[in-house]
């Protein structure tokens, strides 16, 4: 595959002939490369060496990349615990919407056989939750979320206004369905007192989301800023009381809220919940040992036959576990190599025949 430069000379010298007749000469088409379709150009030639070397190179690249990716994916430590069934009674309780004010907690002990080195991230993962439905995705008001116009709930149907007509803040189906389980990871150091693993709830959003896309309405304090609006129907607390510990993490700027509002592309997705604060015992990461998740079970998933899980994972240079990409690259590389070998074989065979053909 080479671009062969061709010997096309663009005719630039415009020999203006003597203007014998004005009219006649003016009709003579211009002798320019463009008008005479003689533009200098290179022709695309699929030459054998070009194509074959291109194939070999691609094969090498893909194989190499595939192996690197697989290796790095293998180095990732990941643990996922589905807790819908484990916390079956909580799940049952949540199926009835009237029990919304009853607290249900659930503890899930697990054993970590190996240390999780480095940064550890905790995710919640939902199965069968359709954040990508057309009407769901649309059901939000960016102008409200950016704090400019709290009353703008135009796109938020069917969760735009409460029964009495007060605009909901944050409005819309996405905000209303926020994931509201609380997950606390504790570490049993000496099989006696569990230590709460220190977790950071900051830095789990995109910078642009936190600083551009979401802004609280400006006011003295948040509660007055949200005056004249009401909380979404499924929410227990108004938006300005989401985080009691950190007043800066409230309103539209709440990290969990921002994460939720970035809707997932597929019905099964995991969203970053917390990241490990590497202090004390956890400077190296999560040491091996006994842990447990203490979950306040709020988010109902059994109604739509969904499932929830909590995931702990480390990262590599390319992000989280990405076996698929590595495998895909390896397969592609292998197939490309195979193809290039067979193409070369065909090419050589034909070349032999060509020689024969001429010799005859």
């Amino acid at each position, binding site marked *: 595959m080479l671009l062969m430069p061709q010997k096309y000379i663009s005719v630039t010298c415009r020999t203006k002939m003597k203007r014998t007749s004005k009219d006649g000469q003016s009709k003579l088409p211009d002798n320019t490369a463009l008008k005479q379709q003689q533009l200098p150009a290179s022709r695309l030639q699929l030459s054998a060496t070009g194509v074959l070397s291109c194939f070999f190179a691609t094969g090498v690249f893909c194989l190499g990349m595939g192996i690197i990716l697989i290796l790095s994916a293998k180095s990732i430590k990941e643990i996922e615990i589905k807790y819908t069934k484990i916390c079956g009674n909580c799940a049952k309780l949540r199926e009835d919407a009237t029990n919304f004010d009853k607290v249900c907690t659930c503890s899930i002990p697990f054993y970590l056989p190996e240390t999780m080195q480095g940064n550890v991230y905790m995710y919640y993962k939902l199965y069968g939750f359709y954040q990508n439905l*057309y009407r769901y995705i649309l059901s939000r008001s960016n102008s409200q979320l950016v704090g400019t116009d709290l009353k703008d709930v135009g796109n938020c149907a069917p969760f735009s206004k409460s029964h009495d007509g007060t605009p909901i803040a944050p409005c819309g189906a996405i905000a209303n369905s926020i994931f509201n389980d609380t997950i606390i990871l504790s570490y049993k150091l000496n099989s006696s007192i569990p230590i709460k693993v220190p977790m950071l709830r900051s830095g789990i959003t995109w910078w642009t989301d936190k600083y551009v896309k979401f802004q609280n309405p400006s006011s003295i304090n948040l509660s007055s800023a949200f005056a004249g609006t009401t909380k979404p129907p499924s929410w227990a607390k108004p938006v300005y009381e989401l985080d009691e510990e950190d007043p800066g993490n409230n309103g539209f700027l709440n990290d969990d809220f921002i994460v939720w509002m970035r809707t*997932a592309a597929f019905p099964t997705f995991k969203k970053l919940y917390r990241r490990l604060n590497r202090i004390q015992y956890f400077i190296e990461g999560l040491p091996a040992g006994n842990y447990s998740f203490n979950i306040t079970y709020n988010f109902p998933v059994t109604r739509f036959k969904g499932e929830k899980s909590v995931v702990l994972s480390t990262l590599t240079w390319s992000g*989280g576990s990405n076996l698929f990409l590595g495998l895909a690259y390896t397969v592609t590389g292998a197939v490309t190599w195979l193809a290039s070998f067979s193409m070369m074989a065909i090419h050589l065979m034909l070349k032999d025949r060509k020689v024969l053909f001429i010799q005859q």
Partner: protein
Amino acid sequence: MAGEAVGKVRPWEENLQEESEEGSEGLTLGPLTSPVMSPSCRVSHGIAGTLLGEMALCAKKRPPEEERRARANDREYNEKFQYALIPQVSSLSWFTTIVPLVLVLAITAVKDATDDYFRHKSDNQVNNRQSQVLINGSLQQEPWMNVCVGDIIKLENNQFVAADLLLLSSSEPHGLCYIETAELDGETNMKVRQAIPVTSELGDISRLAKFDGEVVCEPPNNKLDRFSGTLYWKESKFPLSNQNMLLRGCVLRNTEWCFGLVVFAGPDTKLMQNSGRTKFKRTSIDRLMNTLVLWIFGFLVCMGVILAIGNAIWEHEVGTRFQAYLPWDEAVDSAFFSGFLSFWSYIIILNTVVPISLYVSVEVIRLGHSYFINWDKKMFCVKKRTPAEARTTTLNEELGQVEYVFSDKTGTLTQNIMVFSKCSISGRSYGDVFDVLGHKAELGERPEPVDFSFNPLADKKFLFWDPTLLEAVKMGDPHTHEFFRLLSLCHTVMSEEKNEGELYYKAQSPDEGALVTAARNFGFVFRSRTPKTITVHEMGIAVTYQLLAILDFNNIRKRMSVIVRNPEGRIRLYCKGADTILLDRLHPSTQELLSTTTDHLNEYAGEGLRTLVLAYKDLDEEYYGEWAQRRLQASLAQDSREDRLASVYEEVENDMVLLGATAIEDKLQQGVPETIALLTLANIKIWVLTGDKQETAVNIGYSCKMLTDDMTEVFVVTGHTVLEVREELRKAREKMMDSPHAVGNGLPCPEKCSSAKLTSVLEAVAGEYALVINGHSLAHALEADMELEFLETACACKAVICCRVTPLQKAQVVELVKKHKKAVTLAIGDGANDVSMIKTAHIGVGISGQEGIQAVLASDYSFSQFKFLQRLLLVHGRWSYLRMCKFLCYFFYKNFAFTMVHFWFGFFCGFSAQTVYDQYFITLYNIVYTSLPVLAMGVFDQDVPEQRSMEYPKLYEPGQLNLLFNKREFFICIAQGIYTSVLMFFIPYGVFAEATRDDGTQLADYQSFAVTVATSLVIVVSVQIGLDTGYWTAINHFFIWGSLAVYFAILFAMHSNGLFDMFPNQFRFVGNAQNTLAQPTVWLTITLTTVVCIMPVVAFRFLKLSLKPDLSDTVSGPLSAGGAGGRLSEPHGAAGHAGGGHPLSLGQTPVQPGAAVPRPRRYRCGPFPTLPGQVRYSQLVRKKQKAQHRCLRRVGRTGSRRSGYAFSHQEGFGELIMSGKNMRLSSLALAGFATRSSSSWIESLRRKKSDSASSPGGGAEKPLRG
């Protein structure tokens, strides 16, 4: 009176250009009766008062022309657009559909408006031609369009007749006037018309202004040769016939001026009635495209249904339970209804598979190709200063698919100029030019022409290259002198000498003119004639011969003689005529001379020259006296006068002494034989349709190498009855199948044999045949029950010549081929008689630069030389077709790749009609991100350099066989598009499902996914267009790289903070581009997608190139023809150039004895990888070349001798001359003849004509004759 008579007068050319609606009725073949006209049309001409009234009518403005607007598939889009406004259904913003639609409509409107504007301009050019109209007793200049029925207009010499006129008077005696009807019927000889005696005296304007006669005549019709009417004037009636009419399209010749009364104007003229209806032409690709769009639409509905069902099921199974998070809309009460709404939503989302911008892109590409045609310097005729012009911009790619070319003869293949080229005088041949190629050589390559300065009366325009002939004349060689004396005496040319020494010859046929002019230059100047004398300046000395008799020409005699008495009193008969006739009537003593002359004749005939044999005979006084007596008796005979005269003539034209022979070249247009050879090699069949005589047509057929002596047989069909024609056709077919080469069983096919069987039998015919069919036979052959037989026979022949056909018959033949052969037809012609055929054929080409522009106005393309046809078809047409096909393939591919992703995503988003991409991306994808690279490819792409397409005419075949874009190719594109869309969706899906970003946050959010898929899509289709583009110019680079750059620029702009701050609800993707595209995983995904989408394409193309290369693959690269070293000398007309070193006689190409004979109608070039196409091709060319070579060299087959006495000559002028009627003599001198001249010579002339034309299909046979 005026109102009743005139009806509406419309601008003249408007009719030609009228755009009829699609699907309007085809060619109206029967005689037309205008509903406006009363059965008998009364035309009157009154004095000033009524004239004013008529003028008022004339001034009526034409109705404003409406603009063509509606496009084929707009309605669907309009509908969709309306759906998009229903909130429950909409899944896209209004602008995603509206913006492209408005853009498309705007561009189309602008283009159509420009088209119309230019068309109006050329109409106006014709409509505003000036003619002199007699108004209020004075001549005034009026534009053509204002001339109306009842006006008297004045015509001057060499002017076009602007309307059907009744000739009132002329500058010539007896109200005679001469016209040339080449525009009308293709006949090149001059015709004579005469005013009726009462009006012929109305010479001056004042008398004409008082003329108030009234014409009652037939309604407008399309019969060129018939007119009947009556003139009422001064209380008497005068019958009118075609002999008194000047039809529109004729040119006045040799007549200083004449006056005529307009009888039919504008669309009512016979010419216009003959020109057929304008049809809206569309290309086959257009039709295919529309079918495909319909299919795609069906496909779209299918997908919509599948997804709607999916939606209903999903809503039923999952959606109902998911209502806590997303309740249904109020309007939606069941899963079924939700599915129904989702159907419409998906129709809107997926509508991009039916690309709106397709139509406008196609138009833009065609426009570009049209400009390339207009700009082509190699199609610019320097002599006539006319560039080629694409008059319509919608047919370009069809130029690459032409299978049948229908050509006019006169003015198209020939220049309508006769040149005295060679002669043989008493066994010696003169006129050979030193150049081996003889007449083929360009004028510039010849040595200096002979200097005729010794002769003050010589015609400066006459050129002759052999000085030996002039030497012989100067030496006083008696044979040579007698030869030229004959030429200066034996003819019916009239001379006119305006000033001393300024001679003008009025020749009835250009052949005669050429011969007399030749004699004039060689010192035997025909100076003047009276009915009884001829004065000739022989080498400067005036000699007056007494003209005793003219033994005129007719079709049976094929010769003419004069009997003159020279000043010494000797009586001598000079005769010139066809060799076949004359050689039998020679004195036996001249046997030796006869054989040499025969050799020369054969040689001339082999070069395609028209030959004549000259002979003389001395008569003694007694014999002549006795013979003259017998002749007088015969001419006075009441019954069978013709026969008796003929036998008397035959008696005296005997035992003549051979003088020699002349050879006249019917000058072909430049490069005609080469063009025909090249087009034939490109598998294009050429049919010549001419109004001219059979002999002339056949002769031209030979000289332009359509017919060759190598042909197995040339069938001539001249039957007058249905049965005869059927029999002749049947015999022809039998012969073709009986030939020893024939593969078939040789059994004649029964008459009711199905056409399919006929084809299969006749396609196996070996050997080359040609068919010549006459107009009256054609009339029968075109009848419904015989047309298939005719068509099959004709199509099995290598060459077909139809002669004596009327304009409408031309159209019928074209229509026949069009209808049954499913092939693309092209008609080329220059005259008004070609208009109907030009309009009927898929593509009409007009020869411009001639005086008449009727054909050009009706045509789709025009240029001034027939030879440009090869460039138009083989270069422009081929490229256009190639580009259009590549464009369409890619266009469908990219839209399917783009759209089908939504389909796959449907399975993951609950079939909720969620789009994969950002709405702006959907809006801009087709009109910004991917439009320009493919447009650049569609406009500029070239697979092989233009020289190659001339050298390898076989490269044209894929177009004829429709190989590059058909339903199969379409499905391949679609499959590729779907394949791409699958990978485009599932690879990112696989990656995103698990992966996280490198900062641990979620990767698989919807917006990142959208950006990733969109980016990889833009990259993949850009790489694909890069692969498809075979010819990378700077513009291609600019557009392809530019599109990518613009994509990223717009992406980042749309995702920027600034726009979000202004419109937070519109630009929801804020920050997405920089966050997503900063991820290595995303880029790895994009790379993988690109590799997986592109590699198979490359592999497939490479394998195809190695295993089954197309001819264009093998000749495109520098590897062919030895690269720069073996550069070809001349691309123009190189192939098929007889004798010349053909570029394809490549030394480096190994000739493979084992290589099979190229199979016809196969494009793939066989299994051998080494330029197999070239090997086979060069063999083919060599074979053809050899054939041509042989044909040039091998002369001497008597069967091929084609001579005829002055082919376009007609009988009749002899009598006219002897009557003295047409001579401007003093009344005294004329009085001497008055008694003798038959007062009704023109009547007898007409009688003769009607006798000779008394065939059943009389109308068909003689297109323009009274």
